[in-house]
């Protein structure tokens, strides 16, 4: 295991599904959210990094707790201190954390009950994405909902967007979202058009495997990356309608992908097989020509990858803030990686 002095492990007695730094304006983030899953009681917790027992090193300390029914499936920020949380009982909540006193309990700003349902019964809301106050949610019912975080209403619902369950969603533009389903069928939706038909659709690969996460490149948003249940990573250039370049990356499902917020050439991915990898995408991204340049992605050796963490258990989520990375997973531990070079 790559356990060096820069990694601190804290066991927290709950399986964490999502972990998110609370960014500060001019400093390194000190607080973060976690959302748990698959336990008798699940909750959103706020943690702060603090010195415990006069140690030299900081460890996470839990400061407040918000109990939810069902499993937490996604946490995303919609504002500086506001998060959207989706749960497996078909609800989406907007929770606010006090800017000055992180210890005060989270305030529920809005709640959308029964947002996703099959035959009248609530079903899991599997994922959500945010963009400038808009929230796109997807669920096992195959519906897409667009929520407005300022007014707290539902702007648009695409019913039966998919006959299977949807598992991932991402905003491409403020009026365009891309969804991925249980079979790796990706669909792009224009939110302005009123008919419930996708503008584009394509398949992840031939294997009918779920697309577990979708992201776009922070500075070149027409590049879409998706991770699959079997550990593959695919990349599309939406400007040209080409077949994606896919790469067998992790040995098992990709759980989360993220470009480092400070360096768009650095991609990080975590997986069910317990790895956290960093990818140097500079070579891939620099090449502005289309089609041929994806050859770089075909081979793991040509794109430089580096293992940041290895665990025996699946890693569910991670988040980066400057040189600090938080990783959490099924081993009920929060790994705090310091001094990451980005």
């Amino acid at each position, binding site marked *: 295991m790559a356990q060096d002095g820069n990694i601190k492990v804290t*066991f927290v007695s709950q399986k964490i599904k999502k972990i998110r730094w609370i960014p500060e304006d001019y400093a390194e983030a000190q607080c973060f959210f976690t959302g748990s899953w698959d336990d008798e009681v699940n909750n959103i917790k706020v943690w702060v990094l603090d010195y415990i027992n006069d140690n030299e090193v900081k460890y996470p300390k839990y400061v407040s707790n918000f109990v939810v029914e069902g499993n937490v499936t996604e946490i995303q920020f919609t504002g500086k201190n506001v998060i959207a949380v989706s749960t497996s009982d078909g609800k989406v909540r907007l929770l606010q954390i006090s800017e000055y006193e992180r210890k005060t309990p989270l305030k529920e700003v809005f709640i959308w009950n029964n947002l996703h349902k099959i035959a009248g019964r609530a079903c899991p809301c599997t994922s959500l994405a945010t963009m400038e106050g808009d929230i796109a949610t997807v669920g096992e019912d*195959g519906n897409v909902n667009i929520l407005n975080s300022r007014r707290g209403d539902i702007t648009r619902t695409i019913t039966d967007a*998919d006959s299977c369950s949807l598992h991932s969603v991402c905003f491409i533009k403020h009026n365009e979202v891309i969804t991925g*389903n249980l079979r790796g069928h990706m669909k792009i939706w224009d939110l302005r058009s009123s008919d419930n038909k996708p503008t584009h659709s394509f398949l992840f690969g031939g294997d009918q495997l779920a697309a577990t996460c979708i992201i776009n490149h922070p500075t070149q948003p027409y590049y879409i990356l998706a991770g699959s249940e079997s550990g593959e990573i695919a990349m599309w250039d939406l400007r040209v309608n080409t077949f994606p370049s896919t790469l067998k990356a992790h040995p098992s499902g990709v759980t989360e992908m993220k470009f480092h917020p400070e360096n768009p050439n650095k991609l990080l991915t975590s997986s069910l097989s317990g790895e956290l990898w960093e990818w140097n995408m500079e070579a891939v991204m620099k090449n502005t020509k289309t089609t041929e340049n994806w050859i770089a992605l075909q081979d793991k050796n040509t794109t430089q990858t580096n293992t940041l963490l290895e665990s025996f258990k*699946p890693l569910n989520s991670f988040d980066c803030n400057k040189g600090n990375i938080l990783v959490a997973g*099924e081993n009920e531990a929060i790994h705090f990686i310091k001094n990451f070079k980005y």
Partner: protein
Amino acid sequence: MEKHLKRSDRAKTFVLPNKCFEKHVACAWRRGNSFTVYPRSQTVSKNQGNISDNKILKVRQEILLFIPILRKLINDSNGVFLSLQKVAENTNSDNQVEFWKLSRQYRSIVRSIIENLQEAAEEESDALAKNSLNSYATIFYSIECIWHLCEILFIKNIPGDVVLPFLLEWVCCHFPSHDQTAAQLLEARERGSEDHPEYWDTVVSLIIQGRIDDARDLLRLHSASESAEFKLVANSLRTMPVYNIYGGISSGEFTIVWKHWQAECRAILNSQSLSSLPYLQLIMRLLIGDYTAFESICSKYPSWFYLLGGYVLFTRPWARRRELADAAAACAGLGAAHAHSHLNTVIRALLEGDLHQMIYEIQQMSDNGWFATHLTDMLYHCGKLQVLDEHQTDMTKRLRDSLVLEYGSLVMEHGALWCTGLSYLAACPPEGPRRAELLLERLPLDSEEKAMRIIAEAKKYDLLGVVQTVCACMSARGRGAGRVGAALAWAGRARGAGLCAGAAHAALRGYCAGAPLPAADMLLSAGSTLLMDDTLLLLGKYSDFHRLYNNKEFKKAAKLLISLITSKIAPEYFWETLLLDTLPLLEAEEPVFSSTETYEILLCLELRTKLLTGEKADLLRLACVRNLARTVLLDGVEE
């Protein structure tokens, strides 16, 4: 008969509350170690009067390890356990050192759990909860103590097998006495320290802990330290030979030096020069390993473990690991205190090298088998464990496996820790995976996410049966909820033709009854999944037909429809739909069916007169005839 008695001895009796069942009780097992007790009567009673009194009781084992603090132990130690299995897999490298490192990791986990428990106990205001936290801490104290000794005796690679320095370290670590007083006095460095009420006890403690230099320092702080008697004792302490495997002398030589030194000490003692100073006399008696001296101080210590190191030091400093049993017996005989405690039995067993007995004893600890499982596994991999049954067959692997399996199943009982439990079960093939299969199939599938996780874990351990079952379950659920797309997608994952057929039939019947054709998006992109079953293939192709028709590609649509008709894969109930679908195409402005194709339609119609009758059949016949009239002459031209 005797065996029977022994059994009932071990059984525990619990009294159910409220005497709710006077008679007629039945019970049913649930998942894991829980069951339900319910009233059941063999005879049908006419008066239903007291039914309201009856209750259903859910009885389950309370598992200590599932409290939040100890969940950390489960997870943390699971990592070490898996590392250990990995190390054990490759046999060529220097495993002994690796094992020792892992053993230390286990101990540091236990240590941090003890700290956590103590912190929690300090913060706890409820006396009862505080008490139980403290008692948990006590359990883990003894676990750490036993593990440490076990590590010294069986896991650590000790050069020359001379165990004494490590034994002293163990005593200092777990049974410290007068530590603080010694530190205080040595810090203050005041002459006349003997005024401290515990001065002499401290000196003696330091000596039996083998901290000779500290003891000499402390003696120097005595106001009479310049006297001849003190110098005599200090000199004896200074000249005490210390055995060192790298010291360049053989153990035989050392024995001679040691005996010589002890003879000198004995001479001093016999010379009566110390007769006026009983404490110095006591020290000298300890130095020569006088059993009565140890006896005399024994009452000052809570148990004989405190004296073990010192006893070995002054009687057999060259003792090897195997030779500690005698010392243990001697020390245990010193005093009655603690003689019958559990820890006593375990440590005696350990020092005697009876690991079987030790494991039996630690299984009785109330930590839900955590300690017994992990320690046994460790010793098993180190190759230090050998257990024979009465027929002299090697039971070691069976013992280790049964403990690991039991612990794994126990952990799997917790809703959130199934993945951890699974990794234990997987570590003991072949029985473990089979058990895992049974347990995994019974996990509640509350979301697709969970189902996918279970599938991923099952694939990791090659439990393909579980993958099938979970997919089938999800498929059935999709069908039940009327979501054909989801049902088909999961059926496709299960690679189950039956499931596919079921879902496809449901969709086709639904369509015949007037519902829209479902899951078009899925069927049009399903690829080779469609080939799994004929009905599914029909559904897929029929869906494609609709697409072509809607796109006004009538020629292609007609071709497809004819191929569906001639392939005869459609179920009975669907023929009517299929045949009637030809109607609009037959009546199209431009003829789309050739004459041969029209004949095919007619043939089908005539062969299945039962399925399409009356007006509809006549209409179709008429359309066919009209189409034939248009096309019969065209045919030759087109081809």
